[in-house]
């Protein structure tokens, strides 16, 4: 591998530096060229890296020899202390290459989209500098060849997420949302950090290759392995918005819509998936942790989907949908379908980015309105947005042959062989997904316009910079499934073969149960049929009968109210954690801070002042006295020497 690929993260970093330092002096055109150009350069290099890996695998297959198809590009020795050693080097292997393509590919499209979306924002340059910084850290996260480099990227993307959620920092609510995201992530990060430390203590290294090689000799379900994997998983729940640390993601919608698409749907939130997929061998050796991962993922998937059913904010629906889809990915990881998880990351990146961007286009046309109760009938005036949003909605609902079908089906298939109950719940979740997505779709684009006259007058299709990324993403959402066509449909499952070197050790240990092709087809049919019924009921309710979600103050039944208020999770957290913390802080402030710490500090200060006031008097100004003191001093020294 040519070491030129080490430049992949450098371009966005340069873009960030240039825009951040000189952004105010550059024109908007130049800023957008730099912002998008740097990501495009990274994309080109990523494609090059991808083709090299692909070529290697092809050669290995042709001659029937094994290959791990991974390259380490050493850059420099970063930290060396005692027996702790962390190199700053990049790892290019099938898994990181897939993520590189997703990040730079989807990232580039969203950069282009942002040119149009953010065009009237006074902080245009600041926005692009943050986006470029985000891309840099995200690339660092997936490129690092050890856990510490991953952690640096991990923290970096958290920072960028914070900066971009609070991008419109004049709004206090947005700042609170940004703080919430950051703090929630910090809780998870602590788990991740402890996990890294424990990995170092256990394996004596934090480099992936060394850790995984050593791990191979461990017994299954050892306590230390379970602890490591669970600590890492805590990190993943923070970054990837799983129960119990998911509440920040819906609030993160305060950021500009391209940010929601890029960071809070397509890339950053999948970092947890990447981390677990990367550590697959550790998880395979800790089946208990895998059960927990699967359970948490499944529960989150269902839980978030139910909340999504009743939300009225176009971005909130998509946010809960993201949480739910991430739950599916964790379910996949938990049942050992690592390829399925990565596949779903990819297809989800396509259709969720598309849905968010299309939602952004709607919001743009509606002059900032986000409440779907005030939309309706937009299909006439927003043709391209309507069509692309429709394709994205069908894809996420898992209708054959759209991309979502293949990835979701793979996850559900593995869940079925693992535990039939998981499969059933998974199908239930996908039914709800189809329902709330089509509810959103129908309420937004069908029926009559429900906004103000002024808004109706302003309705317009978005500029080309916004619609072209939409179209590209729509095409990807439709055909994205070709990378993982299952054998039962006569496909080769390209992604499975491509990722084989990364997951082979785990697959070897997992020995997945096979299921017959007939079962597989029945499962697919059931899932698709259930989704179609669900879509029809959404059509019946919201188009035929023209139902509308209740107004804010309308009386609704208690169950619906509970779900609409997100099960009061925020209030619950406030009671359970924030109140005791506030109480404790208050007590500590009053008793420890004021009574002890403040007093101690003041005592030292006052003591110095008092002593100085006394000692000052020795300086009488009488020269005779000084001389006398000097002579006495000399005599004392002499006496001391004599004795």
């Amino acid at each position, binding site marked *: 591998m040519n070491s030129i690929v080490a430049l992949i993260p450098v371009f966005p970093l340069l873009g960030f530096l240039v825009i951040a330092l000189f952004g105010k002096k550059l024109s908007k055109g130049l800023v957008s060229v730099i912002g998008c150009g740097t990501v495009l350069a990274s994309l080109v290099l990523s494609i090059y890296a991808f083709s090299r890996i692909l070529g290697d695998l092809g050669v290995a297959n042709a001659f029937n020899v094994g290959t791990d198809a991974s390259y380490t590009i050493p850059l420099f020795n970063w930290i060396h202390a005692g027996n702790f050693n962390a190199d700053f080097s990049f790892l290019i292997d099938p898994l990181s290459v897939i993520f590189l393509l997703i990040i730079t590919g989807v990232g580039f499209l969203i950069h282009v989209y942002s040119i149009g979306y953010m065009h009237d924002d006074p902080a245009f340059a600041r926005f692009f500098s943050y986006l470029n910084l985000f891309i840099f850290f995200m690339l660092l996260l997936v490129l690092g060849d050890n856990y510490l480099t991953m952690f640096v990227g991990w923290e970096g993307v958290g920072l960028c997420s914070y900066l971009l959620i609070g991008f419109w920092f004049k709004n206090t609510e947005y700042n609170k949302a940004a703080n919430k995201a950051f703090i929630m992530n910090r809780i998870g990060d602590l788990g991740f950090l402890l996990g890294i430390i424990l990995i170092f203590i256990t394996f004596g290294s934090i480099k992936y290759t060394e850790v995984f090689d050593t791990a191979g000799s461990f017994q299954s379900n050892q306590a230390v392995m379970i602890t490591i994997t669970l600590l890492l998983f805590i990190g993943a729940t923070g970054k990837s918005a799983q129960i119990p640390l998911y509440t920040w993601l819906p609030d993160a919608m305060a950021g500009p819509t391209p940010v929601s698409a890029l960071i809070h749907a397509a890339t950053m939130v999948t970092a947890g998936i990447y981390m677990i997929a990367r550590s697959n061998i550790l998880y395979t050796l800790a089946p208990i942790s895998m059960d927990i991962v699967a359970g948490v993922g499944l529960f989150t998937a269902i839980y978030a989907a139910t909340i999504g059913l009743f939300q009225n904010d176009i971005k909130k629906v998509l946010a809960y949908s993201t949480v739910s889809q991430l739950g599916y990915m964790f379910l996949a990881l938990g049942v050992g379908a690592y390829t399925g998880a990565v596949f779903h990351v990819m297809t989800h990146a396509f259709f969720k980015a598309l849905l968010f961007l299309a939602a952004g286009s709607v919001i743009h046309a509606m002059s900032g309105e986000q409440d779907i109760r005030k939309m309706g009938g937009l299909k006439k005036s927003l043709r391209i947005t309507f069509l692309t949003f429709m394709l994205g909605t069908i894809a996420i609902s898992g209708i054959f042959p759209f991309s979502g079908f293949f990835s979701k089906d793979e996850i559900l298939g593995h869940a079925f062989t693992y535990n039939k109950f998981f499969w059933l719940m998974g199908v239930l979740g996908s039914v709800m997904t189809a329902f709330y997505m089509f509810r959103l779709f129908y309420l937004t684009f069908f029926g009559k316009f429900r906004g103000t006259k002024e808004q109706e007058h302003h309705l317009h299709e978005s500029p080309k910079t916004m619609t072209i990324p939409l179209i590209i993403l729509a095409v990807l959402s439709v055909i994205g499934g070709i990378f993982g066509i299952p054998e039962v449909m006569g496909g080769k499952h390209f992604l499975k073969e491509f990722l084989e070197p990364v997951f082979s050790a785990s697959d070897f240990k997992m020995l997945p149960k096979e299921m017959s092709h007939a079962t597989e087809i029945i499962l697919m049919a059931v899932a698709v049929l259930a989704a179609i019924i669900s879509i029809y009921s959404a059509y019946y309710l919201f188009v035929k009968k023209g139902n509308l979600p209740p107004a804010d103050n309308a009386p609704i039944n208690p169950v619906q109210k509970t779900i609409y208020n997100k099960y009061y999770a925020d209030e619950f957290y406030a009671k359970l954690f924030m109140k005791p913390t506030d109480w404790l802080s208050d007590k500590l402030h009053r008793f420890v801070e004021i009574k002890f710490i403040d007093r101690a500090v003041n005592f030292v200060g006052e003591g110095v002042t008092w002593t100085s006031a006394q000692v000052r*008097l*020795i*300086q*009488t*100004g009488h*020269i*005779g006295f000084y001389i*006398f003191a000097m002579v006495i001093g000399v005599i004392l020294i002499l006496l001391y020497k004599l004795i």
Partner: protein
Amino acid sequence: MNTIQTIHINHYILLSTVLFCIGVLGVLFRRNAIIIFMSVELMLNAVNLLLVAFSSYWNDPAGQIFVFFVMVVAAAEVAVGLAILVMIYRNTGSTDIDVLNKLKG
């Protein structure tokens, strides 16, 4: 056997000590700056005397060379010191060191 060694070393030490003590007492108890100056010179010369005596008994001329340095430094010191004294006298009309007590904490 040179002339210096015709007298016993103890006498030199005793004389120097006496001279030095007179110098110290003069510095301590006199108030006139010029007398203090002279007392300082007395102390320096007491040390010089002792250096010469020791160097002779020790058969090492280094001590006597050192004396030259002390004398040079003393001369320089006197030059500067007397200049300061002149200025003090012009400003205060006195050479009493008790007048100079402005520099206190």
